[in-house]
């Protein structure tokens, strides 16, 4: 256990209740130079409603504690009330920057319990959409990360590029966010006419823009000064704290579920895992920037290899019949009615599925009791686990760097609090 001793002895986590912290903050001891202050939840750099209690000595952060729960809306409880078909509408609202991934992990869990085999086209559509979503999520990160560190120009460019992808999502799913597109049994609708041209256009404009970002941010001395050597974490610490995704990869540990435990058709496409060296804020930034390039490679292969065929399983007990069939077939009408009123029943059992979301391992633990609603649905949110690395990254650093560190974790509070 020597690996963990360092983590424990560091004393980076402020372990006290809110009332205790308040009490400590009000007592003024002239000999004690430490003080407890509160950052957030309304601070603009806290990605929504993250609140951090900090123990400071001058400008140095000693101990800290992320206080979460401000966005807690009981989504796991809600999930127990929704049928398996309605489930994706609920889970998609958790990670609102990459909603397709939560839909995917939930759908994979339901399909594992149903033991149904997906048609190829459904798998590849899912992969295409997820990789585009990874790009839009990372672009959002570049935008907010730039904004947090004072590169406001980057914010505008990041949002602009993300919008290109969201426009494609709107065309396919009807919505810019919270798509409810990936559903148990496949996807909601087939790709629309002209999707190929739209994706090709995105692939055409992005590389040039990414190079502009390199000029604007990566090579810029001020940016490097601000991010290099800040918020360092080692591989052992990241693993012990359950951190995954870019936080873990920034330490130089090449762990990516798409490669390690391939789901969908990731074993049929070529891509590289981007890793860092120092585990600092700059590495986490550079990883996400380059992951956009890797995702573009996967999207290109999706364009090439996209098979023809049905976009969802043809099992009428799971997916509704085509609209045209309802007019002519009584049976189709009954199936349609049954699916949308009482939902389909899922055999009893329990399963855990995991996918690599832009933030790390996104898992779904699903228990069915044989009815149309889950007995228990738990989402393993990568941001929730990654936030635990925050006190360790901030320990001993400056208060101004705390902003850079929070931003580099890229937490989405909707999925942290669920």
């Amino acid at each position, binding site marked *: 256990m020597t690996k*963990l001793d360092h*983590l*424990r002895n560091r004393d980076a*986590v402020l*372990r*006290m*209740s*809110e*009332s205790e912290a308040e009490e400590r903050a009000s007592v003024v001891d002239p000999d004690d130079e430490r003080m407890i202050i509160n950052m957030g939840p309304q601070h603009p750099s806290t990605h929504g409603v993250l609140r951090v209690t900090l123990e400071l000595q001058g400008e140095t952060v000693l101990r800290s504690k992320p206080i*979460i*729960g401000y966005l*807690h809306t*009981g989504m*796991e*409880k*809600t999930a127990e*009330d929704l049928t398996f078909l309605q489930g994706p509408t609920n889970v998609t609202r958790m990670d609102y920057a990459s909603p397709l991934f939560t839909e995917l992990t939930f759908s*994979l869990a339901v*399909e*594992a*319990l149903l*033991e149904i085999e997906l048609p190829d086209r459904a798998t590849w559509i899912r992969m295409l959409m997820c990789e585009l979503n990874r790009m839009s999520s990372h672009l959002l990160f570049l935008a907010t990360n730039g904004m947090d560190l004072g590169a406001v120009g980057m914010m505008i460019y990041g949002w602009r590029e993300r919008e290109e992808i969201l426009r494609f999502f709107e065309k396919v799913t009807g919505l810019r966010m919270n798509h409810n597109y990936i559903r148990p049994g496949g996807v909601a609708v087939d790709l629309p006419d002209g999707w190929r041209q739209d994706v090709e256009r995105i692939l055409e404009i992005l590389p040039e823009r990414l190079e502009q970002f390199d000029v604007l941010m990566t090579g810029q001395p001020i940016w490097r000064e601000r991010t290099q050597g800040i918020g360092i974490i080692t591989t052992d610490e990241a*693993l*012990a*704290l*359950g*951190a*995954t995704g870019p936080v873990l990869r920034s330490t130089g*540990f090449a*762990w990516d*579920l798409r490669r*390690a*435990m*391939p*789901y969908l058709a990731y074993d049929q496409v070529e891509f590289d895992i981007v890793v860092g060296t120092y585990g600092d804020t700059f590495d986490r930034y550079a990883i996400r920037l380059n992951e956009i390039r890797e995702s573009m490679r996967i999207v290109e292969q999706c364009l090439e290899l996209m098979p023809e065929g049905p976009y969802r399983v043809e099992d009428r007990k799971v997916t509704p019949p085509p609209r045209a069939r309802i007019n002519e077939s009584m049976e189709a009408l009954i199936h349609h009615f049954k699916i949308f009123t009482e939902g389909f029943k899922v055999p*009893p*059992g*329990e*399963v*855990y*599925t*995991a996918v690599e979301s832009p933030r790390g*391992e996104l*898992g779904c*633990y699903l*228990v069915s*009791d*044989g009815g149309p609603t889950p*007995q*228990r649905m*738990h989402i*393993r949110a990568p941001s*929730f*686990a990654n*936030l*635990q690395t925050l006190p360790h990254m901030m320990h001993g650093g400056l208060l101004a760097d705390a902003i850079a560190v929070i931003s580099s974790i890229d937490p989405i509070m909707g999925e942290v*609090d*669920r």
Partner: protein
Amino acid sequence: MSESPPPVDDTTETVKKLYDVAVTESKGQTVLHPSRDSYHDLIQLLVGEGYDVCVDLCGADHLGNATRVLPMTIEPERFELIVNLLDVHTPRRLRIRVQVPESDPVVTTISDVHPGAEAMERETNDMFGVCFQGHPDPTPILLPDGWEGHPLRKDYAMGRIPVQFKTVEGR
């Protein structure tokens, strides 16, 4: 679909021998069913076997669930603690399910072995009222301080807190 180790590999064999833990399989994923007393030691032992990441820890309330399948030797209880372990060196997963009785919902913490389980145990405590003995910071995490009840318990009804609607003047 996440890949999982073959039903019986070296690890499960070792575990079986050492702790006499029941092993089942669910949709191709290996599940261990240790008793509450041997749970902490088992987690510790599995670190040595390579399962050094505690990727997820959550609770479940099986009140009224008659369809649950458990090994013969395991007495079903109302609550369950589910731990998903990950071996990042040879990619494989392992799930651990511990039965937690309603009358005494206390389990030993594993945050001394896996510091990452700390927040997850706090969440489980919030949601199910399962206490973790030896936890370094047993404060609420998702719920406000002083919240009464445990929302994810099956007998905690949805909508039990009335929402106040305001009437519009002049109608």
